């Protein structure tokens, strides 16, 4: 079992021989080992390899964005300058540096990590498997969107080396029109990333429409597909608006055309409308796919039919539709008209309902289930708790009168971190653990996995609960230094971020360790019944040895667990005693 080389994807003897696999059939090479040249990876059209390359890229960017988060949190440990004096001599330059840090953290995490995290990295790997398909509808376009992502990422790296950017990830005008930092390369980077996102969305929409297997109607799809589909629609419809907006901003900066800058006759609030017309739906690009992941995690690890399938499916669609109608709630204090504020506040509450429906249905799924508290289930449960807080604190901000006080304070910062990180990223990490054995063919250390999950959970809450309190007490966001009365809250928050970081480093450790010396993964380690669990881990090049027939993805009755191999064996679909739809 030992592989001394550090190659993360070593050719496994076990895979070739089939030893330890669930099936006794002779297995061919997996998608990881079928070809070995570098060009077979760089030019691959295999959705699994593309997904894996996305994953490596996204995780690297997560590390980078995380380092900037730690720099920001460390600096805020005290109202005095702590870290910035190491890099800059005057107080002015130190403040500039801090502004670059939080901007870089936000922009990397939003555009390069959370938005592509679940759809592009996990989705690319899992979506065709869930459909029993060989690949996505447009494999070349898929590779194209990956390289667009890489290009966008390179622009961001360039921004880092050309002095950074200090506009905040929102690029609000007129500050972004006059800031002396590398705004244009960052805008071009985001523009390119937008196309990556559009192409992925387009690919997934067509794939789900045209490539479902025989027997899989819309309402027999795994819920992750509903979530991915809803997200893809948002990606295709909303992202172009961001692209146009950023192009206009580039024109404004380079040619001095007055669109957003009042000095040239432009309107800064118009920029906010354009920006949030994309960026509010983008919040759902970040949260709906992890919700889909969590539906799979909860059902599979409770070994019980998902409760309220149609309600969860429709709630994803409802969120996607409502997401286009609430952007103005980011602008309650901007001076947009009173009537618009009232309308946007009203519609904002409509987004809360489908979210509540999802939470209650997940809870009902757990009721009387057979819950295995493995790492991915712990992440799923963490998601429900953190998303509950993220959602409930959103209510405060949707209430017009309260938002007058809370807008642009740390309360908002804490709220969107609960949604985008506590829910979005925790869902992503949960999904990563759920499908890790399928991707790599290796089992990770469950004990360390649970410890790391608990560390992330505790660290996360310690980081952001104090931010709610100081925010409602009046601490504005994006502050390099602050009034002494907020120091205690900031210190708790910083300590929390260290605990969380330790949890993530532990995760990185045991995941890398699993690649080197992990136990071989069986075909179906968690007892799932969607199609990806009906093919070897890792799957062969074209995913399945024989064309699979869609079964009910949430039917766990016919699963038998084998203690020796750690595998759930499923009875072949045609031997299932009573299919649900025939009852």
């Amino acid at each position, binding site marked *: 079992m030992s592989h001394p080389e550090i190659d993360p994807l070593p050719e496994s003897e076990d895979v070739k021989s089939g030893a330890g696999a669930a099936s006794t059939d002779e297995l061919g090479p997996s998608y990881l080992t079928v070809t070995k040249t570098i060009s077979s990876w760089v030019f691959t059209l295999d959705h699994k390899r593309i997904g894996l390359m996305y994953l490596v890229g996204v995780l690297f960017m997560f590390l980078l964005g995380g380092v900037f988060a730690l720099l920001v949190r460390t600096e805020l440990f005290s109202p005095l300058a702590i870290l910035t004096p190491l890099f800059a001599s005057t107080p002015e330059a130190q403040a500039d540096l801090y502004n670059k840090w939080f901007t870089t953290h936000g922009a990397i995490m939003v555009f390069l990590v959370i938005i592509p995290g679940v759809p592009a990295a996990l989705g690319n790997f899992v979506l065709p498997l869930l459909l029993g398909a060989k690949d996505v509808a447009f494999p070349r376009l898929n590779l194209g969107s990956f390289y667009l992502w890489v290009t966008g990422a390179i622009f961001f790296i360039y921004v880092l080396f050309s002095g950074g950017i200090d506009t905040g990830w929102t690029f609000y005008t007129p500050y972004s029109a006059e800031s002396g930092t590398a705004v244009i390369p960052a805008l071009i980077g985001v523009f390119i990333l937008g196309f990556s996102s559009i192409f992925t969305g387009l690919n997934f929409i067509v794939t789900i429409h045209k490539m479902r297997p025989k027997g899989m109607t819309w309402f027999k799809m795994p819920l992750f597909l509903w979530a991915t589909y809803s997200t893809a629609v948002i990606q295709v419809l909303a992202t172009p608006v961001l692209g146009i907006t950023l192009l206009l901003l580039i024109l404004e900066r380079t040619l001095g055309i007055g669109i957003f800058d009042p000095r040239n006759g432009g309107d800064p609030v118009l920029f906010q409308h354009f920006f949030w017309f994309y960026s509010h739906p983008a919040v759902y690009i970040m949260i709906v796919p992890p919700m889909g992941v969590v539906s799979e995690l909860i059902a599979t690890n409770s070994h019980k039919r998902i409760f309220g399938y149609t309600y969860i499916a429709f709630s994803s669609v409802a969120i996607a539709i409502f997401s286009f109608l609430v952007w103005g709630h980011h602008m309650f204090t901007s001076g947009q008209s009173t009537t618009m504020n009232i309308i946007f506040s009203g519609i904002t509450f409509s987004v809360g309902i489908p979210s509540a429906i999802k939470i209650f249905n997940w809870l009902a799924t757990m009721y009387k289930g057979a819950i295995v508290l493995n790492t991915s289930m712990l992440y799923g449960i963490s998601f429900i708790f953190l998303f509950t807080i993220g959602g409930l604190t959103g209510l405060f901000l949707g209430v017009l009168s309260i938002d007058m006080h809370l807008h642009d304070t740390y309360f908002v910062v804490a709220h969107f971190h609960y949604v985008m990180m506590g829910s979005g990223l925790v869902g992503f990490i949960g999904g990563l653990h759920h499908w890790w054995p399928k991707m790599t063919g290796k089992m990770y250390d469950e004990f360390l996995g649970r410890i790391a999950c608990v560390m992330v959970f505790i660290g996360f809450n310690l980081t952001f609960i104090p931010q709610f*309190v100081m925010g409602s007490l009046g601490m504005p966001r994006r502050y390099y230094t602050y009034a002494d009365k907020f120091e205690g809250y900031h210190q708790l928050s910083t300590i929390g971020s260290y605990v969380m970081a330790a949890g993530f480093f532990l995760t990185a450790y045991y995941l890398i360790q699993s690649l080197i010396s992990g136990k071989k993964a069986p075909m179906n380690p968690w007892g799932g019944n969607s199609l990806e669990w009906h093919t070897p881990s890792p799957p062969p090049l074209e995913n399945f040895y024989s064309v699979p027939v869609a079964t009910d993805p949430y039917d766990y009755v016919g699963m038998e667990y084998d203690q020796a191999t750690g595998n759930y064996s499923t009875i072949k679909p045609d031997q299932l005693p009573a299919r649900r739809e025939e009852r």
Partner: protein
Amino acid sequence: MIAIPTILADSEPSFWLPAPVSNFAGPIDGDFYFVYWVSIFFLVLITLLLGIFMWKFRTPPGAKAQSHKDHHALLEVVWTGVPIILSVMMFWYGYRGYVDMVVPPNESISIVAEAQKWAWNFSYASNGAVIPGMSDDFNDVRAQIRAGALTPEEANAAEAKILEKAGLHVPMGVPIDVTVMAADVLHALFIPAFRVKKDCVPGRTGKLWFIATEPGIFDLFCAEYCGQGHSWMHSKVVVHETVEEYEKWLAVAGSYDETLPFADNGKIVWKRRGCISCHSIDGSKKVGPSWDGMFGSTRKFAATGTPGESIADEAYIQESIRFPMKKIADGYPPQMPVVKLTDKELLWVTEYIKSLGQNSGGTVSPRKDN
């Protein structure tokens, strides 16, 4: 000379919210606690259920679920319906509270708050006085407290001294109508104790209003990110107990002592009108060029404005203040806002720059250039 109420307000901050000292604090805090208790109820409910299910139904791998029931119409109706009803209530409370905040009453005292990078200026409609926010002076006090150079009493006294001629001053019990404006980029006027906030948008005006309900000194922040000095751009609100005290303060604070030499008044203008945030007088480089030794030197201009060079004489200085984007000093960003100085202020500040050293030609390059 003038009474600045240095005692803290009677109302104490709670765990969640600052001391409630305006007419809006009560209703908004009421809305806050309504949403808060609804949220606490659902958080506790969901967490308890999560915990109980995790504990009660946990099994080793391989066990079978006790039930496979996957739908229950009544449950779905309940957990859709209850959130809808609560949402409508929340929306209604927020709407009602917000509408009250939109239009100031007719009998209000009018004040204009103008934000610039990184200073506040408050103009008082009754006598046209322009009172600065004096962020830099408050920052100095803050720094001295941290360095242990000031006891809390001394710090209070120092702040009271600054506030004699700075800050947003209002009388208690009278509606205050604040028009917000911005000279350069977005800012936002935020007074946590009053629960009010409004974005200052260049090219537009915005409005907020309130009635202060207790005398005292309260924080005033910039809440919309505006670059380098965003976190330093704070000031104070002073609530006077009576209108008479407020008016007495305003009469004195708004005036310059015209018996002083021009350059001395110019130094006051430098501090009051926010020049200090970007222009040093000791040669150190800030956002803009230092005034030290500027007068009479040869200035080079960047291509972003009118390129070329000229001697920094009176005409150049006054043109640069009136039309800051016309000639951009080489090596500096084109960021200076139009600060609307009065003619006298312009004269004084020019005289002050003159007094900071005259060069007889030769290029003065910005110092500490790296």
